[in-house]
């Protein structure tokens, strides 16, 4: 059993006008096996939370803490965070020309485990995981994300999630831009990970649509850089009916 604990997290980004605070005191605890949906309007800081936890250099932590089983995540380098068990499925994964998906996956797996995966089982694991995500075998020899459609990029992110088996997975708007078929395939992938591993999941989304396929244990509404309301799955249903207006008005009034 692992715990990812975020306490009073404050984060800024550098802009032309100076440092701009984005996160204003985020508290969130995720335990193994739990799925937390982080919902909120655009610009509320959801993605900033994801990238700050992963260690993107653009974001400056100005206060608070993030710990994984008591270890200070914020002190770790980006790759150390991954080795510690954190995984971020990105909304806009970048292209890495000339590096094949096969090579990339094997290099990542080797780095995470500290040793190369056994060739025969690994090749089979990759092939089967790709089949489950309805990815054409030719995918393996293509350059990472180069020329991938939006749906292919997301499948590739979930392929990594399935193969790299993190303790905690942060999915940053994995649903955005997907058609219903792709959304279903991707959601099935996430659900397989939830069923077969003990991973904790932070599911960041603007829409309630993906929550029909991936049932969260907890729902957090993110407004203006912090959590405005928390509840169970019923909160997502309420959001679907009412939208975010109620929170936006409150935030503006406050």
């Amino acid at each position: 059993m692992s715990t990812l604990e975020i306490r009073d997290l404050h984060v800024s980004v550098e802009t032309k006008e100076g440092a701009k605070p984005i996160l204003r005191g985020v508290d969130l605890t995720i335990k193994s096996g739990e799925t937390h949906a982080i919902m909120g309007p655009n610009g509320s800081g959801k993605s900033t939370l994801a990238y700050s936890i992963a260690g993107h250099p653009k974001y400056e932590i100005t206060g608070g803490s993030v710990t994984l089983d008591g270890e200070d995540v914020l002190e770790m380098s980006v790759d150390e965070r991954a080795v510690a068990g954190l995984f971020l499925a990105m909304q806009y994964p970048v292209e890495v020309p000339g590096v094949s998906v096969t090579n990339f996956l094997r290099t990542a797996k080797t780095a995470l485990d500290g040793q190369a995966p056994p060739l025969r089982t690994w090749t089979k694991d990759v092939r089967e995981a790709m089949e489950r995500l309805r990815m054409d075998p030719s995918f393996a020899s293509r350059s990472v994300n180069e020329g991938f459609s939006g749906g292919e990029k997301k499948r590739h992110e979930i392929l990594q999630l399935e193969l790299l088996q993190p303790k905690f997975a942060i999915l940053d708007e994995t649903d955005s831009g997907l058609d219903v078929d792709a959304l279903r395939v991707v959601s099935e992938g996430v659900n397989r990970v939830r069923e077969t591993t003990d991973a904790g999941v932070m599911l960041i989304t603007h829409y309630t649509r993906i929550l029909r396929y991936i049932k969260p244990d907890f729902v957090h509404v993110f407004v203006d850089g912090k959590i405005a309301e928390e509840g169970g799955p019923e909160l997502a249903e309420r959001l679907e009916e009412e939208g975010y207006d109620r929170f936006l008005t409150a935030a503006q009034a406050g």
Partner: protein
Amino acid sequence: MSTTAQTSPEGLVTDHSRAVTDGAHSHGAVPGSSRAERATSFELDDFAVPTGREEEWRFSPVDRIAPLFAAGITSTGVQTTVVAAPEVTVEIVDRADARLGVAGKPGDRAAAAAWQGAQEATVVTIPANAVASQVTSVRIEGSSTDDVASAHLLVHAKEHSESIVLIDHLGATTLTQTVEVVAEAGAHVTIVAIHDWADGSVHNGAHRIAIGRDATVKHAVVTFGGDVVRVTPDATFTGPGGEVEMLGLYFADAGQHQEHRLFVDHAVEKCKSRVTYKGALQGDGAHAVWVGDVLIRANAEDTDTYELNRNLILTDGARADSVPNLEIETGLIEGAGHASATGRFDDEQLFYLRSRGIPEDEARRLVVRGFFADLIHQIGIPEIEERLLEHIEAELDELAPHELGAGK
């Protein structure tokens, strides 16, 4: 146009495949006159000693190249050794030999000095219809930078021959050199010139390539070592149906000047050219220059040309100048385009790879290897592929980790 580290990674991409007008066409700061009017001559005196203000020298450290502008560079300060395929013949001939100078005239002072200086030449001949069963290896080795030397090599690929010629440059040198490649009708020849000179070396290599009817030439330049290396491959089509693929790979370190100036002369119809040059730069004062001139003459209908240059800047303090230049004198062409981009080592790529647990150093290697992967594959000779990959790894070893991510 001059592209430096500050330019956007998108760079410059132009598609001229639907060009319908004639007249010179180019981008940015370009010489006033057409490439067709640029002087060429075997006479040294026809070229004034460059000051650095001339178009063909404007990016070059002319003070460091100055020894190569002198008259009477008769020293043979480099040793040329050829290990030829059994089907291939090798001769040392006098400069008066009628086969020399066929591939075109020198285009600048250093090239003219090389022509005037070399009293003899090495001639590698692939006989008509011969298919060379192995790579012919030419080794050009210098022993000192004090001795200003000239050298002349001719690769003569006769009708319908097939061959690969590897030219290795190593040791210490101050050298102005001519490499002529004559591909007769239907010949297939691959030339790979690797420049890996010792520190302190200064080299000007004038490559002149004549591509006959239906001939196919692959010409690859690799530049790693040497203080100043300036290579000027000129390719001219002399018969219809010819094809040339010009590839270049370079890796400039601190203080190195690596310059590649290409000229493809579509002088006849129905020919195809592809130019792909890629370079990585690291360290203070590392300077790469790529100039790609393509001229499609009025009678060169159905021409198909595309040229591309990409630079990957790994650290602060390095500079890449990239100047594609396309002149089109007929609208009746298949296609014509060029692309040039200079990018910084991409922090987002690094973040993506590291977020998967891959350490920074390894992530950087992956990206650089990936950058060169297609190009190395295009050169298409397995032994050389291996060598180039090893060399790139060694270059990366020289880079201290703290120099990375300088642009964050």
